């Protein structure tokens, strides 16, 4: 049984109790994905599986045979950061940085969800094209807690990155 993480293939663990989060952080050393609660309550462990965001603490590694996972390390690097990573830096969309990889993974998926017109609680019309309003961003980022209270800057960073990517 194997899993692909950031385009690299790994064997899945023998112990079925290992969460996808612990597999990433401990077994393959990708500590960019964070553990804040281990119970699906904070979003620090957000990764993309098949392009969709999930809480990696809420799923077991063995359930991902053949899956392709993208973590913060696969989104960009210090020498080649993604537009969202650059925008978080510029807009100070973080303080301690612990929730940040999860925020950026979430925001990465969010931009796709909007592009695909998936509605949210903040959408006025479930059928119409979705605009990237502040309220849409806030609603869709509310699964990612930031105790440092960087939300205002996180919203600004996501808007800026979206604008840059559209240009």
């Amino acid at each position, binding site marked *: 049984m194997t899993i692909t993480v950031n385009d690299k293939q790994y064997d899945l663990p023998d*112990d079925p*109790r290992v969460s996808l989060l*612990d597999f990433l*952080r401990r077994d393959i*050393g*990708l*500590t*960019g*994905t*964070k*553990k*804040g*609660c*281990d*119970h699906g*309550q*904070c979003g*620090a462990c957000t990764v993309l599986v098949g392009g969709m965001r999930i809480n990696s603490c809420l799923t077991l590694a063995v359930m991902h045979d053949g899956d392709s996972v993208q*973590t*913060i*390390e696969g*989104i*960009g*690097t*210090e020498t080649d*950061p993604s537009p969202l*990573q*650059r925008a*978080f*830096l*510029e807009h*100070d969309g*973080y*303080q*301690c*940085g*612990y*929730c*940040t*990889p999860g925020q*950026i993974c979430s925001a990465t998926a969010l931009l796709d969800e909007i592009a695909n017109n998936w509605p949210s609680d*903040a959408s006025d019309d479930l059928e119409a094209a979705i605009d990237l309003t*502040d*309220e849409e*961003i*806030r*609603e869709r*980022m*509310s*699964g990612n*807690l930031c*105790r*440092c*209270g*960087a*939300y*205002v*800057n*996180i*919203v600004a960073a996501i808007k800026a990155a979206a604008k840059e990517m559209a240009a």
Partner: protein
Amino acid sequence: MTAKLKQDEPDTRNILDTMKQGVIGKPIPRVEGLAKVTGTATYAAEYKIDGCLEGVMIQAPFAKGTVTAIDTDALLAMPGVVAVIEDPRQTARAAQGTANEAPVQEPMTVTYYGQPVALVVAETFEDARNAAAQAKLTYDIEQVGSFDPQDVEAEVQEDSATRQGDLAHAVKTAAHAIDTTIHTEGHASAAMEPHGSIAEWDGRNLTVYASLQMLNYNITELADSLDLEEDRVRLVSRYVGGGFGSKLGVSEDVVAASLAAMQLNRPVRVVMTRQQVFQTVMRRSESAQRFRFAADSEGTLSGFGHEARVSNLPQESFAEPVLQSSDFLYKGENRLLELEVARIHRMTAGSVRAPGEAIGMPALEIAMDMLAEKAGVDPVELRIRNIPDKHPANGKPFSSHKLEEALRQGAEAFGWDGANRAPRQTRDGEWWIGTGMASAARVHNVSKAQVRVVLAADGTARVETDMTDIGTGTYTILAQVVGEMLGLETDKVLVSLGDTAFPRGSGSGGSWGAASVGSAAFVACNAVRDALCEKAGINTDDAEFKDGRLNGGKTFSDILDGTEIDRTGEYEPGDISEDYVASGFGAFFAEVRVNRFTGETRVTRMLGAFGFGRVLNEKTARSQCLGGITWSIGAALTEALLFDPKDGHVVNQDLAEYHVPVCRDVPDCEVIMVDERDPAASPIQAKGIGELGMCGGAGAIANAIYNACGARVLTLPMTPDRVIAAMPD
């Protein structure tokens, strides 16, 4: 070589303003930012250490009594289990901030529900977790009379009490009087990174990677807990995923991992579960606060009373200092300030962001709003009228006082209308809309700190201290202070923090970090400047340091000629801390919508104007303010620790049940930084900013709720049930 400065006098030279590099105060992005946004910043539990065992703490399932036995044989027979660590040196509680000694130990004697008693160590986390969950304890329970702080006897804290004049008489004879009691519930720091540690023992020396705020105290607390000499202990905390007070003192995981590593001669990692963090670290005490005001017909105070009750476990000296700003914020020659502590067996009470003012200021500002209404005075004007020109009890001067400016600038930017403050003026469908304001105040402290600055042969600088950056911006502001003083862009200044191998900083806590270590770096830089000028044969007073060159001529590297200059700066507050009252001041303005049927409150607009001395980095300082405002929203509307009346355990012990603000709870917020240099605050004229942003904000929201719908809610948080109960028909 160590250069020392003990500050006995205000420093009005504003030396940083005379430097030429132009990096101080600038909104440069965090120097460690790329590591954080790409996930390469390494937090405590993330160091890759071969053969690391995993430990999970076993906790007591009762509040008071003695654990007489743990069935270790059964645990050792479980898959993967290596050891069960039972050691009287294990700490039963986290240390209080700046304790500088071991907290309560002997964990088998239990004083609160969930207290750690032992550690299961296994080859994998899954095995350790499984074993810990199945541990069988034998114990004797002692009955506890009540877990309610209002039911038990309380001790008055004499050292913080003020009794002056005759408050009761002043209230009786006043044109306008207020007598009201406001309750606040407990809070959790809930830093996003749970407390965790990895300990390595080489038979003589111990290294622990831990998530801590104040290594300069934590090293002593850990060494004392373990009965080890301090020089055999090294603590490393390069990145800390938030602290907010919960990581001020050495926590139980640090000691548990250390004891296990020393006993087993193998590295051991112990990471608390989120539930363990809630149960075993620190809570902010709940409070009951009575305010009595006497005012003349214009609203000017002649009597000011603030009496409060908070709680803690026996043996804890910490008492949530809710009177801290009431001490000096407003006039009133008849004063009564008294704080009492009830001893109860809930978990340890300690520092949570802005201990004292975080709940004292909102409560005070609700009472002030009631006075403004009674006296028929614009709430902003009422505050301005009551600003004393010196400390109202001891007569000491203020170091610098920006409350009035903050109130005026904030009111203007917000578009405050103080003329008609009657509630229920605006409605939009189901929603009442209203505005409110509050003052902000947070005492300023500085502490002794050391920072080493090396001007290397290549003309770049290295900065080293065991100070931490818990999201506060220390890496960046130290690069700016040193860059400004030595004439270097910040990318030429390498800052290394969070390692006790470096000189002792101040630690991050009480908003004192930036001013303390910033001042120590300033002292070191002055010594480096002198040394370089001496080498160049010029007088430091005639020297301009800019872009790595002296007076626009030779580069530092040329002057150094292969050598380096290495100076440690030590800053210590001297008489300034006795001679002046120093505080950050500010003002909050909020607009809310309150649902007339459900009582739900949404904050739609919030503004904070703050004066906190020199701004060291406009970007990170603003973020600190925004963080504080966000916490204000949580304290106002959702955050409350709830305890079981039968056994005192924390009922809402995770992030699903304890509600911190989420992105959609926080509107666009505006921050105004009032221009200020406070010469008696520090030689860099800066004060603390990490906490001011939440010292009063919840009061502005409470007052806005009243203005919107007429519900005067006197218990925080103002959950829908409380708003509905207080709403007039």
